[in-house]
């Protein structure tokens, strides 16, 4: 058992008390470490001004992930090296290739977004396989807002800096991170106020039983905002990410199984391999920073009606494994969602893993994420469709939507009526499309009106059918996978 959080900062091991571990990493850097190069622009993970790099050992190599320090608890940096803009040019002179290119190409105006942008790009410069495409740069920057430049010089600076070969990771970094590694559970603080990071599931269940009111966080991309915006009091924090095995991603002959604490970034490749549209949804899920922290389990467990993974995975027929103590149960993912913000989850129970059957070759999957802004935006509607086609007729259908009800939900009536649909007879489709529109009673809010949501849901089914019937993507989508595919991946 370890009684403090530890990470590497400027070549030294820093130990945090429970109170410090519960601060946001941004506050810790600015208020305790006097590292004021990192800025706060929103304190909710959307602007990227607070971007810092966490360097960690993953599968034997050092990875550099940009994260939003504003909604990350300092304790979540445990085991990592925390790199900030100051670390790129320790002497004060401009010397990192990204900084140099940003300077030469006039990539800053007011400069307030710049440190965060430099850190996002520095992470890419270090870790991205070459060549780096414009699309990859835009994806990397989806979570960095700049209000001044219009981005053109920033994107060019990124491309120019990343035209050079990928640099070696400083050997000392790997050595230091390996040396920092331990197998201990963390419990910093006392009964009344603590930051705990259990190492085994049994320890986790003990903590959950003993402190039922504790705030449980995985990536804190949702929970972080409860702290910075809702100002909830959270003296007791349990962090899931150190629980061994809970982040494991496995592929069997029949299913892909993803541990709850696997980050969206780490699960992206395997999930994306199931269907190109799932890869596309994940590409547009939050930002690089958000995906680096956000967990797959958290996206399900938070019970949001607008989470992106749930409708996709429901359409794919996923099952959810819940665990409490020794008790484990498995249920179809859609059954987990009971009503708005209400799930079939018992006290002390956690989301352990999610299992997605591998689609067979005859399966046609389509998913569309509809947002006000194309990148880094929460869905107004997400429609996911999994069809089996027999000849030119639909043999089976699973249709799920986010944003259309208080929970991610299947369109069961429509699914029934889809059976036998003739893909070659579009004039026969409208009654079916109307049926879908009638199946949901969505809400109006600041993202979209109920009217728009209903219409779009109907049109998405229409579009999915057109595509499955053979329409080329270039005639149905303004952004196709081809454009979005990253060079070098």
């Amino acid at each position: 058992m370890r009684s403090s959080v530890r990470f590497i900062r400027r070549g030294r091991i820093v130990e945090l008390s429970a109170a410090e571990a519960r601060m946001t990493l941004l506050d810790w850097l600015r208020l305790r470490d006097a590292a004021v190069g990192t800025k706060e622009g929103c304190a909710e993970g959307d602007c990227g001004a607070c971007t810092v790099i966490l360097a960690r050992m993953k599968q034997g190599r050092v990875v550099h992930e940009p994260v939003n320090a504003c909604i990350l608890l300092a304790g979540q940096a445990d085991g990592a090296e925390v790199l900030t803009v100051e670390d790129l040019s320790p002497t004060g002179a401009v010397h990192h290739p990204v900084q140099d290119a940003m300077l030469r190409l006039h990539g800053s105006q007011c400069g307030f977004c710049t440190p965060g942008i430099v850190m996002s790009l520095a992470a890419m410069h270090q870790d991205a396989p070459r060549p780096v495409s414009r699309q990859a740069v835009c994806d990397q920057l989806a979570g960095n807002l700049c209000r001044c430049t219009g981005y053109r010089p920033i994107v060019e600076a990124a491309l120019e800096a990343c035209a050079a070969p990928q640099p070696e990771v400083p050997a000392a970094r790997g050595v230091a991170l390996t040396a920092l590694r331990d197998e201990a559970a963390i419990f910093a603080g006392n009964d009344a106020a603590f930051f705990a990071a259990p190492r085994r599931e049994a320890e986790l269940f003990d903590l959950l039983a003993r402190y039922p009111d504790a705030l449980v966080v995985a990536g804190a991309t949702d929970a972080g905002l409860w702290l910075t915006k809702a100002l909830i009091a959270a003296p007791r924090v349990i962090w899931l990410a150190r629980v061994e095995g809970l982040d494991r991603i496995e592929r069997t002959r029949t299913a892909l199984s993803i541990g709850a604490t696997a980050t969206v970034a780490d699960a992206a490749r395997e999930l994306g391999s199931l269907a190109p549209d799932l890869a596309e949804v994940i590409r547009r899920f939050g930002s690089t920073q958000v995906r680096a922290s956000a967990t797959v389990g958290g996206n399900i467990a938070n019970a949001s009606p607008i989470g992106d993974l749930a409708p996709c995975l429901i359409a794919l027929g996923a099952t959810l494994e819940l665990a409490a103590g020794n008790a484990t149960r498995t249920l179809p993912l859609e059954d987990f969602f009971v009503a708005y913000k209400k799930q079939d989850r018992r006290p002390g129970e956690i989301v352990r893993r999610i299992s997605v059957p591998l689609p067979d070759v005859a399966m046609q999957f389509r998913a569309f994420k509809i947002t006000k802004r194309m990148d880094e935006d929460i869905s107004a509607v997400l429609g996911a469709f999994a069809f089996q086609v027999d000849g030119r007729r639909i043999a089976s259908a699973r249709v799920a939507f986010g944003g259309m009800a208080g929970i991610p939900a299947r369109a069961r009536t429509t699914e029934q009526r889809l059976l036998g649909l003739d893909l070659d007879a579009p004039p026969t489709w409208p009654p079916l499309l109307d049926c879908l529109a009638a199946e949901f009673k969505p809400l109006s809010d600041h993202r979209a009106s109920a009217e728009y949501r209903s219409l779009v849901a109907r049109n998405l089914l229409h579009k999915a059918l057109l595509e499955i019937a053979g329409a080329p993507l270039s005639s149905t989508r303004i952004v196709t996978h081809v454009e979005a595919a990253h060079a070098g991946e």
Partner: protein
Amino acid sequence: MPANDTELAGNVDDAGRMLDVVAKSHPQDSARLHVTGAATYIDDIREPAGTLHLACGHAPVARGELRGVDLAAVRAAPCVVAVLTAADVPGQNMIAQAFADEPLLAEGRVLFHGQPVFAVVAETREAARRAARLATFDVVQETPILTIDDALAAGTRVLPDYDFVHGDATSALSTAPRTLSSQLMIGGQEHFYLEGMIGMAIPGEGGTMTVYSSTQDPTEVQHITARILGVPEASVMVETRRLGGGFGGKESQACQWAALAALAARATGRPCKMRLDRDDDFAATGKRHDFRADWQVGFDDAGRLLAYDVALNARCGCSVDLSVGVVDRAMFHAGNCYYLPDATIRSRRLKTDTVSNTAFRGFGGPQGILAIERVLDAVAHATGRDPLDVRKDNLFSPGRDVTPYGMKVDDTSVLRDIVDELEATSNYRARRADITAFNAENGILRRGIALAPLQFGISFTLAHMNQAGALVNVYQDGSVLLNHGGTEMGQGLFVKVAQVVAEEFGIPLEAVRPTATSTAMVPNASPTAASAGSDLNGMAARVAAAKIKARMVPVASAHWDVAPESIAFARGRVSSGNKSMTFGELASLARKSQVSLSATGHYKTPGITWDRDKRTGKPFYYFAFGAACAEVKIDTLTGEMKVERVDILHDVGSSLNPAIDIGQIEGGFVQGMGWLTTEELVFDAKGRLATHAPSTYKIPVASDVPADFRVALTNRPNSADTIYRSKGVGEPPLVLATSVFSAITDALHSLRPGAQVPLHAPATPERILMAAESLRS
């Protein structure tokens, strides 16, 4: 056309002398500090020991009588040092400039949802924020007036209606061969400067106060703070080194937060800092005015405009703030670059129970222009002509060159040339044909293209604001300190003015150090706004530098015993014939000769004669011109939209700094594109802003900017005598984004040729889809 070229060769001054420092692409003055994270914004200043932090308690309703607030729990909260209300203001509880209609802290009535009612002062910011939520409000809630429609129905105004009447539009409309009329809703816009509002105040001896404020108008902060504290303005010193973005949002609106910090510093005797949380910043600070333009147009069968009658209904919010100038500028720009033989431009400045709308890059101009651009599209659709042809036929031309406010446009050829050149370089005609063919296939996806011209008046329309001051000090080593009333918010003002001073002294740019804007160094400055920052401050600084140079010349001429006219300043040296010394050596010699090496400069723009009451005179020193061609693709099943390509040709006169100017053009354009596409302000039925943070309010990200984005400068000298014949560039490029809105309109129009396109701004996916639906039905 070179893509986004940043080098222009061969610029010369009026005397034909090659320029060394001006007209070159130097980086923004702090670029090195930006990229290394070493640039100090106010929140980065090392806090003096004992610094306290503020957070406001905000009104929970939009309208009502404020009977009282129970602050007991707030006061009892941990780490709270003081709680301030209107009763604690020693001077006037007022942040309004001229109209005395908006208090620092609410008193008696609630004016809008989120209005600051009290301020908590605590040992930490977190403690202040937590405590601020513990108050209980006693408010008698009333039904708020929120929208333009509400205000029109209730007849509420912050100012009287005001019109320009040019000719007789009513009878011209009645005799015109064809007429159209409709309404256009134009959304507001949140500034979303990346650095939120912040002020820090440090109390000094004898009732003095030093204030650090992220403001575009330190003089106004000084004025308001002194009035609130009840002290002379000389007792308040305001300093602004840099802003993390302003865009007009920190012109009048920055005062409140600096003044609150100063009030708290006065009350506690300790340094105090007020930094708003982003959500509070959204709720409590003003935005771009949203408008409803009710228009009628008369035209002939060829699409030539004969008469225009437009009512610009502007939602001003709860107070006047800058709405005089903002809505006036919308009126001045209601005709854009088009000749309107008979026109009536009406304005209604509507009062609503919402946050007071304020300056935003373009200052009303963009709204006025968007309305007439919609009219041009509608006329083109009605006549079946290409919208570009209709636009070109209506441009000002000799003899058809008087605006509805009576000002003659002299340079009509500049814009015509820009439009012709852009038409060619953007390959408009071939792309138009291609798009027409694409849309003829009746697919789900539709493409659209538009080329939009722009004419933007430069100068403050409030004539006396067209002035600036500067202070230049030369030290004995030849280094130069530069100070002026303009603030640096990312637009590159500091480097441009430093270039001017370096050019004047013939020294390298590095020898000139721009310093923080300070009311103690240069008093009574105008806000940095109206695209006039470099015009005004550049001139003032040149005047100051020229004064010093004129004092140095006799020193050199006496020293060498040569004629003063023979002395030249260039490349860091002063020379006459074969005699030469460094600029520093001359400075040192001047000091020994008891010559002052410090001077102030003052400049006022000549010839601004606008008389608002009489509606006569000249409101602008000159116009900036430009044009943009945008191409988009829309999805008519979802309303999603992608901008595929943008070409811009813009007029900055002779550029002071091409890289900086291109940055302004690109950044302004993208900001305008956001305003017209994804940036949507949604107020709920209670008047609460539902899009109160970047999670729900979506400004453009990198992928929204087309990969094919070509920007070029005309580099044609300003005919007005501005600093090195340059032109202001801060605001005009934002308006070029009307091309995106028109291109979307064009794509939608393909669904039902000849119909009016019922698209309103911002063109969100929802708006685009609903417009498509209505055209299809």
